């Protein structure tokens, strides 16, 4: 990878003509998107629009029925979560993907555990604990102990742990699926704070799915509207408004009902 490809503003991730069907359901019907390093793209749209499915294709969790994903301009085949991770793609899933019964540090290192040297490849709990502590401090999250079970944490804390996990693994492309859902104003504020600090680092491309138009326009550089598996509108955040987005959504619905 050349140094120029690493600088802010260059394209990090692109998807073209993504189609995804589940049996008779067409969740994505030819979706294209792109995001650059240091840029934050917001995806808006109703439940069932296909936002999460798009994310899961970008993380290698689902395979597209057709279409192509590009990382740093080169076409890639994201055949599994591990392959996507190798490209620096990390995701905070809508359901957070945390295991309640496991400790914070086990969750942070789930499926990329640090192992002790030696023939038995045992888990290095001590190093994982230490690094988990450091990773959380790094992004400004403090917990009483990384030994706490995740199930004992509040919604905001769990969200912070999920974000920390994605970031700690050296994400170049960070996908956030409704990171602010089901959260009080204070907790949402903390997460937005965290996301903005990540964005300020300038070397990460961020894609965030959200529901609140005003909030999304405020923190994202660009927004994209998804409806019934298609992208129906795209704009720079500065060039649109919540009212305009709402109007487009209404118009689409009327058209859909008439058609």
């Amino acid at each position, binding site marked *: 990878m050349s140094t120029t490809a690493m600088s802010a503003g260059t394209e990090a991730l692109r998807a073209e003509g993504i189609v995804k069907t589940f049996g008779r359901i067409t969740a994505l019907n030819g979706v294209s998107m792109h995001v650059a390093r240091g840029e934050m793209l917001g995806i808006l749209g109703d439940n069932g629009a296909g936002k999460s499915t798009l994310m899961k294709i970008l993380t290698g969790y689902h395979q597209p029925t057709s279409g192509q994903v590009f990382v740093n301009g080169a076409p890639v085949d994201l055949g599994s979560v591990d392959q996507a991770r190798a490209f620096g793609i990390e995701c905070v*899933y809508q359901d957070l993907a945390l295991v309640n*019964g496991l400790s914070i540090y086990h969750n942070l290192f789930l*499926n990329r555990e640090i192992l002790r040297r030696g023939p038995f490849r045992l888990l290095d709990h001590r190093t994982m604990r230490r690094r988990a502590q450091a990773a959380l401090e790094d992004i400004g999250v*403090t917990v*009483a102990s990384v030994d*706490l079970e995740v199930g004992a944490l*509040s919604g905001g804390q769990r969200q912070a742990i999920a974000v920390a996990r994605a970031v700690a693994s050296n994400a170049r492309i960070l996908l956030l699926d409704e990171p602010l859902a089901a959260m009080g104003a204070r907790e949402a504020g903390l997460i937005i704070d965290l996301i903005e600090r990540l964005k300020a680092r300038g070397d990460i491309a961020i894609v965030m799915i959200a529901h609140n138009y005003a909030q999304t326009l405020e923190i994202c550089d660009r927004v994209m509207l998804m409806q019934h598996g298609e992208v129906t509108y795209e704009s720079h955040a500065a060039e649109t408004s919540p009212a305009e987005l709402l109007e487009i959504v209404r118009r689409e619905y009327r058209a859909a009902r008439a058609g």
Partner: protein
Amino acid sequence: MDHTASAGGSANAGPRRGIAGRLHAFLLRPEASVIVVAVVLVIYFQFANANFLTDANLQTVSQFIAAPVIIACGEIMLLICREIDLSVGQVFALAPFVMERAAHAGAPVVLAIVAALAVCALIGFVIGLITIRLKVPSFITTLGMLFLITGVTLTISRGFPADTPGGPLLTNIMGNWGYAEIVWALGVVLVMHIVLRDTRWGLHTIATGGNVIAAAEAGININRIRMGNFILTSTLGGFAGLLEAFRIGSTDPLAGGSNIMFLGVASGVIGGTAIAGGAGTIVGGLVGGIVLGVLQDGFTLQGINAFTFDIIIGAAILLAMVANIHLARLRGAGQA
């Protein structure tokens, strides 16, 4: 920004020091209450009957304990990843016959043992295949296997017992010496304890049972985990059956069965393994097995008749299951 977690009462929380702190931490562990029960039972039976802590009786108790504990080690892994194997008691009976047939056909005994274990592993593989690929709940898959394997065992044995092959040294090592079975069982416990606590396999087993979607999203191959634990459980069941056959000196087509399987599952659950998956310890399964074995032996020494004994064991298991579920709730686990 400050996300201070203030969740008190978690098993691992806080830097509490000193004896009181340690005791507190210990009592919050899932298997703690069972360890206390086990100790109380041993003391009670020793007072009630001075023969309890004698060499002869300890051998007997250890033999009650060994097989269910070995089976529990497999079932605990399965229960943690939300599966179960009801047919392991039938594999227990089949394995010695496979070994005996192989030895009879001219294989060296050690090779015959390996062959028997390989057949058991294959049975686990088939169970996994049916459960995972054909999406049949393991409860049903293994219920079918239970009958199927019984039929196979009765067919190849023609319903008759046979002497186990092998010289005295091998026979002693494989279960005939009074404490051989329990030594093997403790070895299995040690290895499985490390596997569950200190390997990726163990961690991924817990993750698969605790939140299967999260495990998959983290890139864990959940089907591989489930498959591996089915193979493990069948193999351990066959191994326990081999030990039992060598101890007695003969194979028995009706050995083990559902009884030994339920003792194994009950040992795990009494020891704190969550029936709903996602949590459990091997040490808990060992202690659960000890409690059941001590009860069984202690009441036999007391001369309580078999019917009464079944009532007591049944009540004890029910009590332990209720405690298991409610203590888990108290500890704040299982809230997903």
